[in-house]
């Protein structure tokens, strides 16, 4: 490619990647994104000889004013200044790309690209930003280098001095330089691409090393961004088919104590409801507030131990509970709800305290909530194994104060529903047996479907139990809760996620929006709340693993995305400190290993003196050889060219030339030594013959590489010198 084309192509590549970084997160409206992409492509062809740029310039200015007014109005109207600002930036870039003429315009394109990258850092937190950033580092290095070369070449307009004169010169035509293929070669581009990877690595090192003091969280949640869907409420009676949403809402690492192959899929508990009314579940003021004890294990973090009244372990301290529970490290994406999920039954939450607390809200029904505008990382300890059947059968005692809310039977529950519940549990002796009877009946008698049907005027639960006899998880859960309450069990409706996909590349569970699920919890005195999932086949569905190639690729990409979130978006002071600590200890280990190896080598050397001496000598010789080579090559910085010829003959010739010049017999730069002799023969007179001989000697040594007689050269030189010294007559 020619110099000019490389310059254009690299700049466009840089602008395109910056644009990708900005619009990739969806913070810019699709229409503007489309205009940006198409416009940038079109502007490639919109240039001087083809288009009269001067004629169009006022139109671009007018359009820019219009767009600015639009952006201002939209910003005020929607409050999304960032998004509209980004749209305006996109427009400015387009306008510049269409009106580029001078180096100044190209320079401004560089600045606009950088601004787009900065805007993208707020608008786009996806892995795509990371990819675009990597590309940007490479393309920007290229674009900047080529731009700089072109600008300097234009500034120093290369002058060609007209031959034979000292006062006339012609500018080298710029067009010819831009058409040259020798200035920017593939080698330069490959080399700088490699170097820019080094820049990328160095940026990553800077990124990890720069101290994260100040706010650990965004001061302001990013609103208007795509959020995973999980509605903070359950509404029965919709219609249409529920779509499977593949968006990942959380990723969970479970360091130990969970065998994903044999253990049943985990119920990730989120929200819980006590009140049912006309097909929808809600929390009421009558339900008990989540109670927990709080301590502060580190600055900026707090640990909450959820206290379920009436449990046998009530009053145990946090450390004891943690010791007996299973740990999960959760990265939760921003969602429509601020509830924090944990495996059933969650006992302890360890979470970051935001720099600025939002309005305090009451958490009810053992929910834990925390506002988070970006991915939040917290740790949960849960009891994964429910109490065994014998313990639950034996459970007896009064229910805690306030738990009457979990026994309330709504008015719109039909009599036949209650009758059905009583009929199913007629033979059961204990509360646990009653719950199991209901579970078995629901799982066995009713069918699971994602197709929703309109219940019409009927209560949705009644419609589900007696008319449709099929439904999705929320119907099963709701029916279970209502029927359990009808037979005197304190029960609540719970929503969250079930299972999730195991990522074999990075050993974590990825939970998707499509894994949303609903189930029930029943209270047993002494044992607390116990999970009951009435949906048939739910566990089996959740345990199924997709082994197709696309699913594997998807999981692999998700690993990258997860790492991006963990190490870039979610990187904070805590992680930084633990990383430095890890680095320090691994350095210590390395030092220990080196010391060990050294001692071993010393012992071996003592045993094997001859060999070690040989190796030592070889190393010394290698070092000496390297030093000698370095020394021979001379100083490494810029320096004066050493006189090219250094032999005695060349020296004699050079000195003679100096004598000749002093005598007024100078040499034009264009004359070769032989031509000099030929031209000045007459003028030199008697000195011509020795000079001719000296010149030939010089030629033989300098260009022929033949050895010559140095003393003869000196004699000739003295002869010429003497002749020149003769006074002119």
């Amino acid at each position, binding site marked *: 490619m020619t110099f000019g084309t490389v310059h254009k192509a690299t700049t466009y590549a840089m602008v395109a990647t910056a644009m990708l970084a900005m619009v990739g997160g969806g913070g810019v409206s699709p229409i503007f994104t489309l205009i940006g992409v198409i416009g940038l492509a079109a502007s490639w062809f919109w240039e001087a000889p083809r288009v009269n740029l001067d004629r169009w310039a006022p139109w671009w200015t007018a359009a820019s004013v219009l767009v600015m007014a639009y952006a201002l109005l939209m910003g005020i109207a929607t409050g999304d200044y960032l998004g509209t600002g980004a749209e305006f930036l996109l427009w400015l870039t387009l306008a510049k790309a269409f009106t580029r003429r001078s180096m100044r315009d190209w320079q401004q394109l560089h600045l606009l690209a*950088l601004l787009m990258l900065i805007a993208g850092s707020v608008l786009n937190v996806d892995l795509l*930003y990371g990819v675009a950033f990597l590309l940007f580092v490479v393309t920007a290095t290229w674009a900047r280098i080529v731009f700089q070369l072109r600008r300097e070449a234009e500034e120093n307009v290369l002058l060609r001095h007209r031959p034979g004169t*000292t006062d006339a010169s012609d500018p080298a035509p710029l067009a010819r330089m831009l058409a040259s293929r020798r200035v920017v070669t593939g080698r330069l581009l490959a080399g700088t691409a490699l*170097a820019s990877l080094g*820049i990328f690595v160095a940026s990553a090192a800077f990124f990890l090393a720069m101290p994260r003091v100040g706010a650990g969280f*965004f001061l302001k949640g990013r609103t208007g961004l795509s959020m995973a869907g999980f509605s903070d409420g359950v509404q029965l009676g919709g219609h249409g088919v529920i779509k499977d949403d593949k968006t990942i809402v959380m990723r969970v690492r479970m360091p130990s104590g969970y065998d994903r192959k044999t253990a049943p899929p985990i119920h990730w508990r989120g929200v819980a409801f006590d009140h049912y009314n006309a097909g929808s579940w809600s929390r009421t003021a009558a339900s008990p507030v989540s109670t927990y004890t709080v301590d502060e294990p580190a600055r900026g973090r707090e640990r909450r131990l959820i206290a379920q009244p009436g449990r046998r372990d009530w009053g145990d301290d946090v450390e004891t509970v943690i010791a007996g529970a299973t740990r999960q490290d959760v990265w939760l994406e921003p969602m429509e709800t601020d509830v924090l999920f944990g495996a059933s039954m969650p006992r302890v939450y360890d979470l970051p305290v935001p720099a600025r607390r939002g309005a305090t809200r009451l958490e009810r029904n053992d929910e834990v909530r925390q506002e988070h505008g970006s991915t939040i990382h917290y740790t949960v300890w849960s009891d994964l194994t429910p109490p065994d059947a014998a313990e639950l059968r034996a459970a007896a005692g009064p229910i805690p104060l306030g738990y009457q809310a979990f026994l309330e039977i709504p008015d719109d529950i039909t009599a036949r529903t209650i009758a059905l519940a009583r009929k199913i549990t007629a033979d059961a002796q204990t509360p646990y047996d009653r719950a199991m009877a209901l579970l078995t009946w629901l799982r066995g008698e009713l069918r699971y479907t994602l197709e929703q049907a309109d219940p019409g005027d009927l209560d949705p639960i009644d419609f589900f139990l007696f008319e449709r006899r099929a439904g999705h998880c929320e119907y099963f859960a709701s029916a279970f809760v209502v029927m359990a309450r009808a037979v005197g069990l304190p029960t609540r409706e719970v929503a969250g996620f079930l299972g999730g996909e195991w990522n074999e590349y990075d050993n974590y569970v990825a939970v998707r929006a499509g894994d949303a699920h609903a189930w029930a919890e029943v209270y047993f005195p002494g044992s607390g709340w116990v999970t009951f999932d009435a949906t048939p086949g739910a566990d089996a569905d959740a345990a199924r693993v997709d082994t197709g190639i696309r699913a594997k690729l998807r999981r692999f990409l998700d690993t990258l995305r997860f790492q991006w979130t963990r190490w*870039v978006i979610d990187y904070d002071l805590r992680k930084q400190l633990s990383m430095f600590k890890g680095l320090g200890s691994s350095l210590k280990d390395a030092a220990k290993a080196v010391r060990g190896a050294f001692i071993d080598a010393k012992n071996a050397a003592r045993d094997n003196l001859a060999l070690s001496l040989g190796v030592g000598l070889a190393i010394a010789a290698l070092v000496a050889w390297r030093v000698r080579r370095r020394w021979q090559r001379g100083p490494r910085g810029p320096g004066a060219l050493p006189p090219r010829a250094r032999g005695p003959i060349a020296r004699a010739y050079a000195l003679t030339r100096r004598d000749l010049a002093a005598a*007024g017999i100078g040499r*034009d730069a264009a004359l070769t030594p032989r031509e000099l002799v030929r031209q000045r023969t007459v003028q030199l007179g008697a000195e011509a013959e020795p000079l001719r001989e000296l010149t030939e000697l010089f030629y033989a040594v300098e260009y022929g590489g033949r050895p010559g007689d140095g003393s003869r050269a000196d004699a000739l030189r003295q002869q010429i010198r003497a002749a*020149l010294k003769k006074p002119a007559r």
Partner: protein
Amino acid sequence: MRPPRRLSFTRDGKVVVALAIAIGLAAVNTGNNLLYLLLGWILSAIIASGIFSESTLRGLRLQRRAPGVVYAGQPFLMEFTLDNGKRRRASYAVELEDLIDGDRPGGPRRSIDKRCFFLKVPAASAQTATYRHTFVRRGRHELVAVRVATRFPFGLFRKSRDVELTTEVLVYPALVPVTTPAARAETRGDAITARRGRRGEFFGLREHRRGDDRRDVHWRSSARSGRLLVREYEDELARDVTIAVDNALPAAVREAVADGRAAPDALAPGAALERAISHAASRAVAYLGRGWSVALCARGLVVPAGAGRAHEARLLRALALLETTGTDVPLPTPAPRAESVLVLPREGAAGAPGYVHVVVPR
């Protein structure tokens, strides 16, 4: 003490540093990790820029070549050869500038403000470029070093290193148009043609010079020696001229120049003297060109009579280096048998010649 390398921000560099500070503040304020990433990138790019520019300057060898003859006030081409000794990497966007010593001894060096630009010097090859320059003053000019600079790769900084490389340029006095003296062989005008062979006593043979009459060539001797030889007559020796320059300056002026308070030609007497010297040089060249034998004298200087190219160089060199004296140094008396041209500096109104030209006939 001069630092081995200098680094100065370009305008773009200042913008980028300001941007980096702004991004850094924003990153600390919001905790947005992607801003930290951008900041890391800018810092890395700055470091990479240092490594790149170092690599561009490394392994460069340069040579400066001044033309043989340089006259004051006349442009000449100074030639630089830049040799890239690196075996693999090309050097890009290298600027070379000549440095001269500053006004104060040991003070910072000054660049002569002419640059040679090399867009690309491929690995293991050399390129040559020239810059045009004019020395206003005669005398010895010493170029003491070359500043090798580059703004490669990103144009954020200008990195330069000074290479010690001394070249002495002897600048002859400016040549001005003067009336052409008569050619030596034609001095007698019609008389010679009329009275051929009767031009005085035969003196000997000498080498042919420009302006010699072809009829004087002694063909037989020329054939024998392989050189053109002409007959010389005693009469012709009389065509000698002595140019005398009065290089005395008032003590006050000389002190001002010596203290560095004024340039040699800044004050009126100095300027007049410079013009006189320039005139003397031009006359000497003109006489020599016409075959005359020219001697030069000034206070503290005598160049004996001579002719030819070598003598021209000797005279111009003497005039180039001619120093001013006080009136206590006597002006030597011209040789008795020669015509004399006395060049006296004279302060005058602007535009007037700064000298009096006195021809003293024999």
